[in-house]
């Protein structure tokens, strides 16, 4: 085997020389094509220049730290040792795109490098377009998720009302009907029935109160975010260190979103973090509400996935804000939301 390799060296050299000439021709053709006036199918042009019809392009989206195709859909780069190989194209130290190609092409790195260099500017333009499409797709997806979340919430409220309060009110009406009927013949029997109706009414009122609190806490409506966060931290399952410095009232949507984020983050911390304490910081800087919920728990929470975090991010992003989660294993979880108040 070894001997065979040695024997083939002169052939390999020959092949390399040949390839270099071919490569020069291919790159020259590519440059002419890319600088021409006619719109170019970039993938086709690169596939031709590289001699790899299976070539795929993936564009770098820095915001999501991921690759997408020309349509903005996420693309995973092939794993090393897999049936495909990837070459990342960089510009000023930043990735622009990745070529996903036949691994055989890696042997001809000079050609690949030349083609990448020649196409860098065009790739950068294509990347901007792909990034825009990716953002649009993300926007549409988040809008759909918001609609779905609203629907789910409405279903939950309807069910809570139907199964709880409405049934209880009907039972009260029935008890009163029964009391009315007994009044003439058996006055003594009326009292326990009335008592029952009154008890049921008390429960129905409590249920309604809880439900309306869940929809929008009265304290938030009446006193604003600072008071509501104070209230929230007192009722939280974990001890909360509170550091709130926000003006009396912020726009209603900002207050709601801020409260929602804090409330979900505290609930998550109580459920998953094994933390002993949570720090809740809210401040208002340059027209932006900054809310940070940090626990001292086990960390390692999923920072992107999880419908809970996704829902929070959707809500914050819908207001033009940003939500980040950092959760290194063993060093607690910090959730930070920045919500512009304009």
């Amino acid at each position, binding site marked *: 085997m070894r001997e065979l390799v040695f024997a083939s060296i002169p052939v390999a050299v020959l092949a390399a020389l040949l390839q270099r000439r071919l490569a020069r021709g291919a790159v020259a053709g590519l440059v002419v094509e890319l600088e021409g006036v006619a719109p170019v199918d970039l993938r086709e042009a690169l596939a031709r220049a590289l001699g790899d019809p299976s070539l795929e392009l993936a564009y770098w989206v820095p915001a999501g730290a991921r690759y997408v195709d020309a349509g903005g859909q996420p693309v995973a780069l092939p794993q090393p040792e897999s049936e495909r190989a990837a070459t990342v194209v960089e510009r000023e130290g930043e990735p622009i795109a990745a070529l996903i190609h036949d691994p055989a092409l890696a042997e001809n790195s000079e050609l690949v490098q030349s083609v990448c260099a020649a196409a860098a500017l065009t790739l950068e333009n294509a990347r901007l377009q792909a990034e825009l499409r990716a953002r649009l797709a993300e926007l549409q997806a988040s809008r759909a998720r918001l609609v779905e979340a609203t629907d789910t919430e409405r279903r939950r409220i309807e*069910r809570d009302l*139907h*199964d709880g309060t*409405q*049934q*209880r009110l*009907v*039972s009260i*009406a*029935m*008890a*009163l*009907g*029964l009391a*009315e*009927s*007994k009044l003439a013949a058996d006055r003594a029997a009326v009292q326990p029935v009335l008592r029952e109706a009154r008890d*049921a009414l008390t429960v129905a009122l409590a249920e309604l109160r809880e439900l309306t609190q869940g929809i929008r806490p009265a304290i938030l409506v009446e006193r604003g975010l600072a008071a509501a966060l104070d209230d929230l931290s007192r009722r939280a399952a974990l001890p909360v260190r509170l550091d709130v410095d926000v003006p009396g009232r912020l726009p209603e949507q900002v207050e709601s979103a801020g409260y929602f984020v804090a409330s979900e983050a505290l609930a998550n911390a109580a459920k998953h973090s094994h933390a002993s304490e949570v720090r809740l910081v809210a401040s208002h800087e340059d027209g932006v509400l900054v809310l940070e919920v940090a626990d001292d728990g086990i960390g390692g929470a999923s920072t992107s996935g999880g419908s809970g975090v996704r829902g929070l991010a959707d809500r914050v992003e819908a207001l033009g804000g940003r939500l980040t989660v950092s959760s290194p294993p063993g060093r607690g979880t910090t959730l930070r939301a920045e919500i512009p108040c304009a």
Partner: protein
Amino acid sequence: MRVVVANDAVILREGLSRLLAEGGFDVVGLAADAEELCALVERTEPDVAIVDIRMPPTHTDEGLRAAKLIRARWPHVGILVLSQYVQARYAVELLAAGTERVGYMLKDRVSDLDELSASVRRIGEGGSVLDPAVVAQLVGQRRKGDTPLEDLTERELEVLALMAEGRSNRAIAERLFITEHTVEKHVKNIFATLRLPQSGDDHRRVLAVVTFLNASY
């Protein structure tokens, strides 16, 4: 009169049962869902089954589907469907399978024991009951368009609504403080104006009126 009650909420099941007992009915069984109800009906063959429209497992319209099933398999068992919402469509579906021994009533209505007792009795005796709120919804929908209802007098509209509720001429006469003879005259006029075939039969006339009202759906 022997009745059974099907409702997934214990408080309503028990409450209704007490109320019906107070009204002089013999409550022979309680069921928590449609499946239990059918078994119960098969075992006890009651005069009337009082069924909540929304029950497990899907909490949509199990009660209505069970009602249709019971009507098909045990036609001599009366059905009163109770609903939290005014849903004319469901009422019409229920009546479309026949207007004998059937009723659709809002849950709120059950606090009036006299009304509840009268309704259950009417169904047990072969009649029909349609909640006034459902009738009002049907009449309201129908009146939005260009319709011969516009040609009815206010009094005739009142009589029409009471007919749709499943009331007999005598009951209508009592309700409106007029003679039965006057009611008959109104009914004749209504059927002529709406171009509906005359019928002495109470069941067929309920169906005719409800079908007419529902036609604009």
